[in-house]
């Protein structure tokens, strides 16, 4: 039994098959990583270039495990009140005034106990994940948060408990599946990484990217899907500020489909380039000096 209690997988292959049928196509490494995260009840720390599918992994796991996805987007200065729990201030104040009106204000200790009880507690994502089982917790872009927040995450990721000074410790009935993503804008503390399994997500190879495109957009012709996948792979080899990830490949396919294109040509590429390259300098680099011809040749390459 895995800790989610409902769905179990015998080996990485079984998990990979389930993920594939949910629409997320993992490679061997990612499937093994996710399998171990489930079995060992350890958070999975994933890094990789933007758009390689770090966040969608958590979504896919939630689908496969039939568990709710609880997402926490990190940002600088995120603290307990936004990440773990907060007190419902207006209702607490009302309760206090009501108690005063009823002449109960004298017993401050009892009143304090009432004010800081579960009924006035607002659960934020981390506490929600502890209290919901099974659940998948996505801590997105942890590198955007600051050191103070990492310390807060440590307790959660090692013990799967949340300590509320006024109430006590809340313990997870069964630990949530945790996926932590990072874009490497700074080094995350070793103590945090040590509690996790670490996986670096690579850009997919041609065959897998083609399969992803085909899976997400069944309407796209085999020819278009292959051309887009090859063109994206080509763009990753060109010297660009922001090489396209799988997310951009998919956006591009959707843009082409929306325009009713079934094969790449100079006109359709020029019109839809904004879906795959998000910097003006990158677009210019591809469009000038025969770059477009090279792109189309790479896309058409049947080998």
């Amino acid at each position: 039994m895995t800790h989610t209690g409902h769905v179990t997988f015998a080996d990485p292959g079984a998990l990979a098959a389930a993920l594939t049928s949910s629409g997320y196509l993992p490679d061997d490494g990612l499937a093994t990583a996710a399998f171990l995260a489930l079995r060992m009840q350890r958070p999975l720390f994933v890094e990789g270039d933007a758009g390689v599918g770090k966040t969608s992994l958590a979504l896919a796991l939630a689908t496969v495990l039939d568990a709710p996805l609880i997402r926490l987007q990190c940002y600088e200065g995120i603290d307990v009140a936004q990440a773990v729990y907060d007190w419902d201030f207006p209702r607490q104040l009302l309760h206090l005034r009501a108690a005063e009106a009823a002449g109960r204000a004298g017993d401050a200790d009892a009143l304090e106990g009432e004010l800081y009880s579960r009924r006035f507690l607002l659960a934020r994502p981390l506490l929600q994940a502890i209290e919901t089982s099974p659940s998948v917790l996505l801590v997105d872009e942890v590198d955007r948060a600051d050191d103070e927040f990492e310390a807060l995450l440590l307790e959660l990721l090692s013990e799967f408990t949340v300590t509320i000074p006024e109430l006590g410790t809340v313990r997870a009935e069964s630990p949530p599946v945790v996926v932590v993503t990072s874009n490497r804008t700074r080094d995350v503390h070793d103590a945090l990484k040590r509690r996790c399994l670490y996986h670096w997500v690579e850009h997919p190879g041609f065959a897998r990217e083609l399969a992803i495109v085909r899976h997400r957009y069944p309407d796209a012709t085999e020819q278009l899907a292959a051309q887009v996948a090859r063109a994206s792979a080509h763009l990753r080899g060109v010297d660009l500020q922001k090489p396209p990830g799988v997310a951009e490949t998919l956006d591009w396919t959707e843009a082409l489909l929306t325009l009713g294109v079934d094969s790449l040509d100079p006109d359709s590429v020029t019109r839809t380039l904004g879906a795959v390259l998000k910097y003006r300098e990158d677009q210019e680099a591809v469009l000038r000096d025969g770059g477009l011809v090279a792109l189309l040749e790479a896309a058409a390459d049947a080998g």
Partner: protein
Amino acid sequence: MPVDVPAAFVGLARTLRAAGVDASPDRLGATVEALTVLDASSRDDVYWAGRLSLCASPDDIERYDRVFAAVFDGVVPMPAAAVEPALRVVPPLGVPADADTEGDGPARHAAASRLEVLRRRDLADLDDADRATALALLTPLSLVGPTRRSRRTGPAPHGPVDRHRTLRRTLRAGGEPVPPASLRRRQRPRRVVVLVDVSGSMAPYADAFVRFAHATRRARGPRTEVFTLGTRLTRVTRELSYRDPALASAAVAAAVPDWSGGTRLGELMKAFLDGWGRRGMARGAIVVVLSDGWERGDAALLGAQLKQLRRLAYRIVWANPRAGRPGFAPLAAGMAAALPYVDDLVPGHSVDALVRLARTVVGRHA
């Protein structure tokens, strides 16, 4: 596949540690646990069990791959990495390096004025011993400077209502309405990113610049990032976390493979922007470049990169040792290309100039 896989991993972890990977015993414990739920007779499963639990960065993965191949595929192991950095001896502060010129009356006064002279001398004109003495003067730097508004809050005399403290106050007042407590966003120091040119033309200054970077990191805290620009870009932030400046310099010396090579500043600046800067490191930061702007490659590329950096960074400060010479004009091709995007161009040729650079970094112009 060796029969005793866990035992093989113990040796593997030891080799990894020697190569600088933090393959601690608790991580090794995770490896063994992973092996129990995977197929320990499959090479792929064994590979992933180790990689997922022992590595913590793409650099680690590269080393892990090599060590794994050595242990499990019988490939000849790579030569062990240099573990102990060579230490340089720094004479204590104020000790004259060449006793014969000092004669027999080294009054404290004379030593002090000698230090004063060393502070102002161009580091390139000093011999090794004098330079070391001068560098010791650099260590205490004050760098309290530009801040930005954090999203964290603290108590304040007025401002938005601090709900928690207000509730506590009301409770203390027995439910009577009380004046609400206030809060305010706190201020945080801005990140400083130091890029140190360690190419051949900068050799006399490189040590001083590394010291400057170290002092900056000590003064500004762990958000400071340091890179060296040689034939390649090397991140040395970790090496500089030693408290002792001599140890930190030695660690940097051991980590940087390309002291005194040629530089292609434009390409390295691009590597910095692509690998680190644009992801967030340079955003809103004060970027300090320590270089003479001598560009071996295409100066136009450097200009284009600085134009981009200009859009990300809060300020760009360029310290050029040549700017300390009389009659300096920014004629080096790289320097000329970079100049339009630089907020401050200051000299960086002497200890005194570096202290002034520190003041420029924090916005207090000397």
